[in-house]
């Protein structure tokens, strides 16, 4: 039985904040395939296209037939726990701070045998369900989970150490006016978030969700205009040390092509999207990075909400998707910078949302509720890449298959 996490005590300012350490991060190029699968919550192993052998650890040639034609394929998640140990001594600083640590050997239904982190609710010799998850270093690792859900299972020390679950954490949503903000706030609180801060630009301008948000418990609205560096710095000065997860959902989506769109909209899209991310990173990044190991409510994640078309331009939304692409590029660099502090950067690619600015577009469109759910699930599962909605999933799949072909298709209005 997993002990439920107790709410963390108030931070003692006289005590030193522990310096974040990371688990071993060096991997071979082949082994990075584990991180790619884990980033999306998939369970994939390296497979030989010539003889079909599934192998682990990842290699550069097939251990059965020496073929070098190796691909990553989804595999069954079942496994049998063959042996286990509880480690009480480690020369590695990260694990040393987290001992004792349970690890074991699992016989995967997919074929190979592997070492894995073992969830506390998995009994000796039991059947387990394995997952590939990202650890604090941002690397993909195998975790043997109980076959069935168990109470408070997300509070297991191993999962908490590697995950980004919202429970007990304080979360900043940068744009209270975005259509998904109320549903997202509700979903985060339902997932156990301790507090939700909402950023609100131009506070004098009312918006429909304001009364709902103001009435919610453990929710506060704060002046925040991501296009204004002073505003961002002011807010960071007041709550920066208490933000454990930052969800940057500020974005400016307007229809229009390169000829038919306005420079004004393009500038707004870049200011609010790409440069807004940079202002937020300047103001909140250092405190996030420094608090990556700060107990139960350690800083854990940065979420960037992106238009699905940040992977490929949409001529109907030229400036907005260009700003999306710029935001994505900056956020990828931010991911590398924040990784040193153990902070995960989650990209949520949102298909066209069902709002005024996408009004003439045909379905499927993404309900704000669905986007909110996708963000929270991404955090609960500790992912790096989430594609919310059918359009976003479709674009991601086509992007993975052939980016040039996807670009052509987008030009045709697909």
């Amino acid at each position, binding site marked *: 039985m997993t002990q439920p996490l107790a709410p963390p005590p108030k931070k003692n300012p006289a005590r030193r904040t522990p310096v974040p350490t990371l688990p071993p991060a060096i991997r071979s190029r082949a*082994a990075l395939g584990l991180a790619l699968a884990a980033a999306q919550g998939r369970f994939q192993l390296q497979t030989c296209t010539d003889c079909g052998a599934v192998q682990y*650890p990842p290699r550069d040639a097939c251990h059965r037939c020496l073929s070098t034609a190796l691909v990553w394929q989804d595999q069954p998640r079942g496994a049998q726990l063959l042996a286990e*140990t509880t*480690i009480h*001594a*480690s020369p590695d600083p990260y694990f040393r701070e987290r001992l004792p640590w349970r690890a074991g*050997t699992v016989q995967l239904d997919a074929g190979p*045998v592997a*070492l894995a982190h073992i969830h506390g609710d998995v009994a000796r010799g039991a059947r387990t369900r394995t997952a590939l998850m990202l650890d604090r270093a941002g690397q993909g690792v195998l975790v043997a989970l109980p076959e069935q859900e168990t109470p408070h299972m997300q509070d297991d020390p191993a999962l908490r150490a590697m995950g980004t679950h919202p429970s007990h954490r304080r979360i900043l949503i940068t744009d209270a006016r975005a259509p998904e903000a109320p549903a997202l706030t509700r979903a985060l609180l339902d997932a156990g978030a301790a507090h939700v801060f909402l950023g609100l630009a131009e506070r004098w301008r009312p918006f429909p969700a304001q009364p709902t948000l103001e009435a919610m418990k453990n929710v506060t609205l704060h002046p925040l205009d991501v296009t204004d560096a002073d505003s961002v710095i002011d807010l960071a000065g007041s709550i920066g040390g208490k933000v454990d997860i930052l969800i940057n959902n500020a974005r400016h989506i307007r229809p229009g092509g390169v000829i038919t769109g306005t420079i004004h909209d393009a500038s707004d899209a870049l200011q609010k999207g790409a440069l807004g991310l940079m202002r937020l990173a300047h103001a909140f990044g250092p405190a996030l990075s420094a608090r990556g190991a700060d107990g139960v409510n350690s800083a854990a994640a940065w979420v960037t909400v992106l238009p699905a078309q940040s992977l490929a331009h949409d001529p109907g939304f030229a400036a907005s998707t260009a700003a999306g692409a710029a935001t994505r590029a900056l956020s990828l660099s931010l991911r590398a910078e924040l990784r040193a502090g153990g902070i995960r950067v989650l990209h949520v690619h949102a298909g066209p949302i069902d709002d005024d600015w996408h009004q003439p577009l045909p379905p499927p469109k993404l309900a704000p509720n669905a986007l909110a759910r996708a963000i929270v699930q991404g955090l609960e599962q500790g992912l790096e890449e989430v594609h919310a909605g059918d359009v976003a999933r479709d674009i991601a799949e086509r992007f993975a298959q052939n980016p040039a072909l996807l670009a052509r298709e987008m030009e045709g209005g697909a």
Partner: protein
Amino acid sequence: MARQGYDGVVLAAPFTEPYTRFSNETAHWWIARALRGSLRAAGLTPRDIDGFAVASFTLFPDTPVALTQHLGLSPRWLDSVPMGGASGIVALRRAARAVQAGDAEIVACVAGDTNPIDGFRKLLSAFSRFSLDASYPYGYGGPNASFALLMDRYMTEYGASRADFGHIAIAQRDNALRNPHALMKKPLSLDDYLTARPIAEPIALYDCVMPCAGAEAFLVMSEDRARALNLPFARISGTIERHNAFADDPIQLRGGWAVDVDELWQMAGMGPPDMDLVQTYDDYPVISALQFEDLGFCPKGEGAAFLAARDLTITGDLPHNTSGGQLSAGQAGAAGGFIGLTEAIRQVTRTAGPTQVADAARALVSGFGMINFDRGLCSAACVLEAPS
């Protein structure tokens, strides 16, 4: 085709450079000390050797090639043996064939490693690609955790108890108390063993070796040369070597010895009961038990019980790891692959001094090396015999 024997080739001049827990010297220094010690024991100079085999983990950025210039050697036969716990026997096998074929007349086989503060962690951190990719990220217990899984499985599968393994460790400590160079100098009781602090369950403190600095060396030459030099020597009755055996076993409960054990005893013309002493690779007691099983002393799964019923001390009915082995003398990197071999040569040449087994004439030495991911990949064994 039956394998050719090792007639006419012998081992001589075993030398152990006393180990230290930590050292600021380099592997080069340790290897030089052991080589010099062995050559002095044989009454030779560096110019007299024309073959050189080296095992070391801490020579970086050098290799044995650079070592020739560093130490002023000019061999016509040079080998690097990266096989950890199997490196002593593998070096012996290669050197013996070189001498037999005339490619070299005298081969010095040397293993040495240093151990600065924090050196063991650094050594581990770049040990192998599979370790980096698939072992260290899971709690970074190092070899302790890898062998804890093996021991956990072994105990579940065969019903062995921790006390059975304690018997092995305790006997070795007893032996080590006679070895003035052993790092462990206090007696070990079963109670000490059973109540020791856990390291990686079921492995506790006294299942583990102490990483240290040290070096070992011996010479391989023709029997005629050894006689001319008036050196005591040991003959090689049989040897085997195997890598990545039983790759499909989900957890390693047997090693490569089980593939080749019949050939070993056939070649030696003797069997397990003929051995006056046994030197196994003892990074953990469970591994020693595995070797007794795979080398034919008892059936699979009965190793721990078989050993628990024997007296494994120097004066016992089955003397085992007579210098204290790695568990009590220390694990000096790749020299851990030589420690049993140099001691066995001393034993059958009756030069072991305080650890001498009375009337020792035949010894089995076993090597086991290199946990690449979840198991040791290299296994080797040899039977040594005193000249009749």
